[in-house]
């Protein structure tokens, strides 16, 4: 699948924003985070800015962004529509929660409820994003049962990385949670990569044409000599050549490097801790963008079976 920059940016930025929003909404009212207005303002502003950046960039790949509002109408059947509705609805409790924390300096009672509702909204929105991909049968690498958990896990991980950076690594609990999340999430991603390599093909040129009873099916002549929308959009092949190297890089930059940095910060403390927390967050997010790029670029669509591809 063609890894459109707008979609890669959208899913990773909004994932990070919702991850951070979910953590702030969940942990803020419990007193586990600093209660100062400044911290709340910085955290919530960063989270909402990432969410808005993601949502705005998602409209860049539309042919008619001026009609985007129509996408809120089909929530009964469409995960994309549900995602839009969930994203917009989440702004309400998130706004209320920000109002309470930043302007009133309060997080008890109703304000806490707003925080928890925003948290829930963030989780639901990311789950909808994951389901857009996980529900597409023609793309077996997206249809995989680990795709939805991984969308949620990477959102949570990027939220933790950002929260740890905002705290300058000073909260031992958050730093340790980030370390554990880094290990767990990338182990699941490795398991996903292994699984899709070994998966039996979902469809073959023989089943696509129904000509298998005569033997192996090969493309003799393509229907057109130039490219078309289908090949531009779904015939992307660059990543397959460098897939292993890119996976290694994603794992190194997004997983191993942040683990080392955060561990170093925990041991040393002070300024080093703040600096390592910040660099770990940047590296972690770069790794996640790379991972997301690979998620698109490595995915194969069954339409390629009609253009001479091997079983998919």
């Amino acid at each position, binding site marked *: *699948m063609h890894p459109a920059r707008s979609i890669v940016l959208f899913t990773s930025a909004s994932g990070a924003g919702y991850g951070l929003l979910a953590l702030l909404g969940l942990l803020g009212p419990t007193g586990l985070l600093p209660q100062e207005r400044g911290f709340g303002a910085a955290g919530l502003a960063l989270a909402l800015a990432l969410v808005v950046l993601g949502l705005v960039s998602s409209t860049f*790949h*539309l*042919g*008619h*962004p001026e*009609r*985007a509002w*129509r*996408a*809120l*109408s*089909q929530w*009964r*059947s*469409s*995960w*994309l*529509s549900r995602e*839009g509705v969930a994203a917009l609805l989440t702004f309400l409790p998130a706004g209320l929660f920000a109002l309470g924390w930043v302007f009133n300096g309060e997080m008890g009672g109703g304000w806490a409820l707003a925080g928890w509702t925003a948290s829930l909204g963030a989780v639901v929105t990311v789950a909808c994003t994951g389901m*857009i991909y996980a*529900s*597409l*049968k*023609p*793309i077996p690498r997206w249809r995989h049962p680990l795709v939805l958990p991984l969308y949620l896990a990477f959102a949570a991980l990027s939220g933790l990385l950002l929260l740890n950076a905002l705290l300058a690594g000073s909260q031992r609990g958050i730093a340790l949670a980030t370390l554990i999340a880094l290990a767990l999430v990338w182990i699941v991603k490795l398991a996903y990569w292994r699984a899709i390599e070994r998966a039996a093909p*979902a*469809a073959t*040129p*023989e*089943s*696509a*044409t*129904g*000509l*298998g*009873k*005569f*033997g*192996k*099916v*090969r*493309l*003799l*002549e*393509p*229907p*057109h*000599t*130039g*490219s*078309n*929308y*289908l090949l531009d*959009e*779904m015939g992307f092949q660059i990543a397959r050549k460098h897939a292993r190297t890119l996976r290694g890089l994603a794992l190194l930059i997004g997983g191993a490097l942040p683990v080392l940095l955060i561990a170093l910060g925990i041991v040393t403390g002070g300024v080093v801790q703040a600096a390592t927390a910040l660099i770990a967050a940047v590296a972690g997010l770069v790794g996640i963008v790379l991972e997301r790029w690979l998620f698109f670029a490595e995915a194969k*669509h*069954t*339409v390629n079976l*009609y253009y001479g591809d091997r079983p998919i």
Partner: protein
Amino acid sequence: MTSLPREAPETRLGLVIDLDTCVGCQACVVHCKEWNTGGYPGPLSDLMPYGPKPMGAWLNRVHGFEAGEGADGRTVHFPKSCLHCEDAACVTVCPTGASFKRQADGIVLVEESKCIGCGLCAWACPYGAREMDPVDKVMKKCTLCVDRIYNENLPEEDRVPACVATCPASARHFGDFADPESDVSRLVAARGGYDLMPEMGYKPTNKYLPPRERAPAREERLPDIAPEGGFLGWVDRMLTAMG
């Protein structure tokens, strides 16, 4: 409304494509483009049609496949357009309601004024039936020539999809699959019509008829020219020895 019709449509219009008789002439491809560029989904734009990299939206394409090896292998011309699936995920994934399946006859259509050009329906189609218009930036697809088949301004024999009307080999047939007595239903029953990629579970309406079985190829021995001998027999022996 992008939910699928709750009850099975009373008529299920679609195509039967006969892979035994298709000669791969591309006439259906051209007539489809010609009719539809001025019809319901039109215009069907092309970029640089005479330039170095021509590219455009077409609703019907003919692929060419080889199946099997040697004398038992086949060369098969393989036309492909929207299959108007019963379980059409291209419809349910649409966030705007632009994509819909008609209750009355099962035809899957796009209401272009509602399409935001997100491309998700094309991702959801295993068959590659939908193409984004490079100029209009909305999704285009086969309409089963909805503006021909009910068009009372056309003579009755022309009220079939353009691809069916134009096929010189009668490899394309149009009809109602809900009626077991219709021509298309009989053809499917008689010739073993099948679904493409049934494992995807989309339940396509269009059916394909397989190339007919034929007697296994065997090496033919030419008869002796002159079994009785004589001059011709001598020539035959000499030429055989030289060959």
